[in-house]
């Protein structure tokens, strides 16, 4: 829980024809994270064509499943083998055929929808055409001198089309707008109609077929429209039936395709990390937990009966940067993991701060927002939103509970300090004590971070940094000495001389280390050493004082409640309770939010920045389904 699980690098060489099955086996194993592998001897990328074919098949299958819908849950048979490249190509051809069949049916549906929209527009247009006050039969005569078009085009193009049409001696007159389409009549000399036609096709013009009925009696036109609607409706029923037939016809094939695509996914995914090969050989590389190696060996043996070569290597210390981090967390701690990972992923071998983070974060939140009532509201809200927020709601539940606990200690309920007696003390009545406690907590927190950093540096092989740097043990010596000195000066202890000596030794070691580590001219070394040494002292001092905000926010919480009560007391009964309720809502939302952010800030900047590099790589195992 405090550090990543020890991993080993495996290199698996097998027959290229068995690479899909090997990847599938590793995905079934469930805990293999592929990694870059490019030995010069294996100069080819045999999985690339496989990935390309798989991507095509996956894309087509997804589209078809989406269109056809209704496929049951995918079950993967125990001994199912992964498709070969030839299988995938064959599958692609089949899917293409199915897609084309479905596409024409789907396009038929789309055409019907379009026709329905068109009839709607036609009906709307009919009313307007009736008011055009022209004899349409005469206007649209095929043998007239004028060529007339009635139709629609994008509204944005009307001006441009009008200008262009003017060059052919034609006119455009719009008579309706529906959405972004303008309905217009275009009239011009028949001998230049070809030019007009070319221009209109370029302009996205859509001809509105005016039926003969529309050209005569409006009543007949409306009857014609009703008949058309009926016809389109019948067409729609036929198309739906055709689509259902297609669904029935291809359902089992699509289920098979989905299974094959799922089984082919592991090699396609592994190909992004790099599957190398040459001739008939292919090689996969990646990371697995050390404790599962024997299990992996027997699973490979069971599947390939010796037709493979497995190389296992423990990563060297200097390779730590390449190794992904696999950390297992108990269920209750998992909701806090995203908060840590938003700062960074722990590097392999680095101390994983999730557990101390969870405890400290909750402690800080509770200390700054201690109130039984407010904590209860947060708790209940989080429980209420559990379904929506998922496991993230657990953080709210825990924060609300801790807030209630601190409320008991502070004797505060919805800001009232006189309803229950504090089990410990009220921040408002003991501000100095609160500040002292907050700073003391900060000292303890910083000491912990310095120790963890020293440990991280040591395990990463940076022994000098662990011992002598400002964030290592020398920095810790200085910090403890300085704290002791300040406490003694304030009369809290009688250790001034040894404390200052300790601080002096610590800072001298830090200065010497900086001097040795700086490779520059004398002047620059003096400058760098003095500034960085000074910075060590200032930073630690500032970071410690930063924890005063914990006390400040606990006081702020009470002060806000007092402000609400003062306002409420100046009003009548209804106004009083309304102000109390609204005031508490503001406190919960505004102050609760600020405190949550402040606690996070303390953890990130005063804690993580001191010891947590966060530049690790996440362990992403090959999975059989549901992997990106």
């Amino acid at each position, binding site marked *: 829980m405090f550090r990543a699980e020890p991993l080993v690098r495996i290199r698996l060489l097998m027959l290229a024809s068995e690479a899909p099955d090997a990847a599938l086996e590793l995905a079934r194993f469930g805990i293999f994270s592929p990694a870059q592998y490019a030995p010069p001897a294996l100069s080819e990328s045999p999985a690339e064509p496989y990935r*390309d074919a798989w991507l*095509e098949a996956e894309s087509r299958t997804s589209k078809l499943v989406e269109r056809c819908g209704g496929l049951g849950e995918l079950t993967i048979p125990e001994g199912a083998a992964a498709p070969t490249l030839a299988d995938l190509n064959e599958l692609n051809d089949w899917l293409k055929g199915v897609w084309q069949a479905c596409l024409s049916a789907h396009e038929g549906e789309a055409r019907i929808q379009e026709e329905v929209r068109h009839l709607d527009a036609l009906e709307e247009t009919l009313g307007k055409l009736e008011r055009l006050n022209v004899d349409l039969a005469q206007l649209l005569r095929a043998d007239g001198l004028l060529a007339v078009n009635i139709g629609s085009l*994008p509204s944005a193009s009307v001006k441009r089309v009008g200008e262009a*049409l003017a060059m052919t001696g034609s006119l455009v007159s719009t008579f309706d707008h529906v959405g972004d389409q303008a309905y217009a009549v275009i009239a011009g000399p028949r001998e230049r109609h070809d*030019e007009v036609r070319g*221009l209109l096709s*370029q*302009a*996205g013009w859509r001809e509105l077929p005016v039926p003969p009925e529309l050209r005569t009696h409006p009543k007949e036109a409306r009857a014609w429209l009703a008949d058309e609607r009926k016809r389109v409706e019948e067409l729609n029923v036929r198309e739906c039936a055709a689509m259902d037939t297609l669904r029935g016809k291809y359902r089992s094939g699509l289920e098979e395709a989905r299974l094959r695509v799922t089984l082919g996914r592991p090699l396609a995914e592994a190909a992004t990390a790099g599957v190398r090969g040459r001739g008939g050989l292919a090689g996969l590389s990646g990371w697995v937990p050390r404790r599962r190696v024997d299990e992996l060996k027997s699973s490979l043996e069971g599947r390939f009966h010796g037709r493979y070569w497995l190389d296992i290597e423990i990563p060297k210390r200097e390779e730590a940067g390449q190794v992904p981090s696999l950390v297992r967390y108990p269920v209750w701690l998992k909701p806090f993991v995203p908060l840590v990972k938003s700062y960074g992923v722990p590097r392999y071998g680095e101390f994983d701060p999730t557990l101390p983070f969870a405890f400290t974060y909750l402690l800080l939140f509770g200390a700054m927002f201690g109130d039984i009532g407010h904590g209860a509201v947060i708790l209940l809200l989080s429980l209420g939103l559990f379904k929506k927020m998922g496991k993230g709601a657990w953080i709210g539940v825990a924060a609300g509970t801790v807030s209630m606990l601190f409320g008991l200690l502070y004797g505060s309920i919805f800001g009232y300090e006189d309803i229950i007696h504090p089990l410990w003390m009220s921040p408002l009545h003991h501000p100095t004590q609160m500040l002292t406690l907050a700073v003391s907590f900060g000292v303890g927190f910083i000491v912990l971070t310095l120790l963890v950093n020293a440990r991280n540096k040591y395990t990463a092989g940076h022994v000098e940094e662990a011992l002598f740097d400002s964030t290592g043990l020398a920095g810790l010596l200085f910090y403890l000495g300085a704290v002791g000195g300040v406490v003694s000066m304030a009369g809290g202890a009688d250790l001034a001389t040894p404390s200052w000596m300790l601080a002096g030794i610590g800072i001298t070691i830090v200065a010497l280390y900086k001097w040795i580590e700086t490779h520059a001219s004398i002047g620059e070394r003096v400058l760098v050493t003095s500034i960085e040494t000074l910075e060590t002292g200032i930073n630690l001092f500032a970071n410690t004082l930063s924890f005063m905000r914990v006390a400040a926010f606990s006081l702020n919480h009470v002060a806000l409640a007092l402000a609400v009560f003062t306002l409420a007391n100046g009003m009548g009964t209804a106004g009083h309770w309304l102000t109390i309720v609204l005031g508490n809502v503001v406190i919960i939302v505004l102050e609760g939010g600020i405190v949550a952010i402040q606690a996070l800030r303390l953890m990130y900047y005063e804690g993580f920045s001191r010891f947590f590099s966060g530049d690790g790589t996440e362990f992403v195992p090959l999975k059989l389904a549901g992997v990106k």
Partner: protein
Amino acid sequence: MSAYLNTRVSLYSGRLWQMADFEAVLKIPDAEMADALGSRGLPQLAAGFDHRDQRSLEQRIIAEVLDETKVLIRPLTGAARSFLIYWTERFEVSNVKTLLRGKMTGERPAALINRLTPMGAFGRLDVQDLAHAEDVSELLRRLEAGPYAGIVRHARRAFEESHDPFILDAALDRGYYEGLAHRAQPLENEAGAAFRRLMGTLIDRINLVWMLRYRFNYNLPPAQVYFLLVASHYSLPSQRLRELASLGSPEAILDGLPEQLRSVLRDAPDIPGVFARMENAASETATKVLHSGAPAIARAFAYLILRERDLRSVRAILRGRALDLPADDIRVAMYQTTEGIA
């Protein structure tokens, strides 16, 4: 922020190539080419020089332009930022055309994706998804649901009516440049005459070259040619474009131009010649704007125009060398580059 951008542009302008730089790169041995490109402010080209792959060369040139544009955009907000971002989008419109052509010829998705220009932080298209569309209609429908809906919607309707790839390309180009001119308008008011001059040289060149091509290479009727041009309020406003499109020969069109353009194009031998001369004139305008006290956005735009001109010439040199062409032939190609970078 304009002080920062001005400084940044001034620093960048030191990267623009002089004639001596082109001559030097034309002559140096291959082994020294990467260093020469790197030392002349083209790290992307230097890094991939040994690839010798023309597609990769094109992609690296665009990556270089995008890298610099990213830096110039950083301090900008509002209309200026939106304009420069849109300026980079022509590379993505070019990707849209590649995708459409690929679908028309039934190219496989992997090969198609490989031919696309990586847009980095400027990319707005889900190329994986688009490349896996089954045909042009599906691709157009998907594009219409994406960031280029405005440009594509019109093109789709035109294509559905005609099924002519030329119409599709022309509609996409026109849609893009209409959008550019639209975004430039607020800046012409804010950034004044310098910016307007730059836009003017760009849109006038596009309109004139397209007009000549559509009218005399593709034999389209005047009304259709006019419709395919970009609405303009520069030296060639709509009324003038209509008059010019109605004329019957390239010579008549060149004679009908305003005096300023006529003098530039006098005796231009052919349409590529017209393009080259107008581009040279545009470069001169951009150089003047760059070295003037014009607003920062105008100087930044001028720098990008000049930088792309340089990169086109470098591309001509590298391509020519890869094909073992004689230096004189490369010089001709370099000085008379006839195609845009996009």
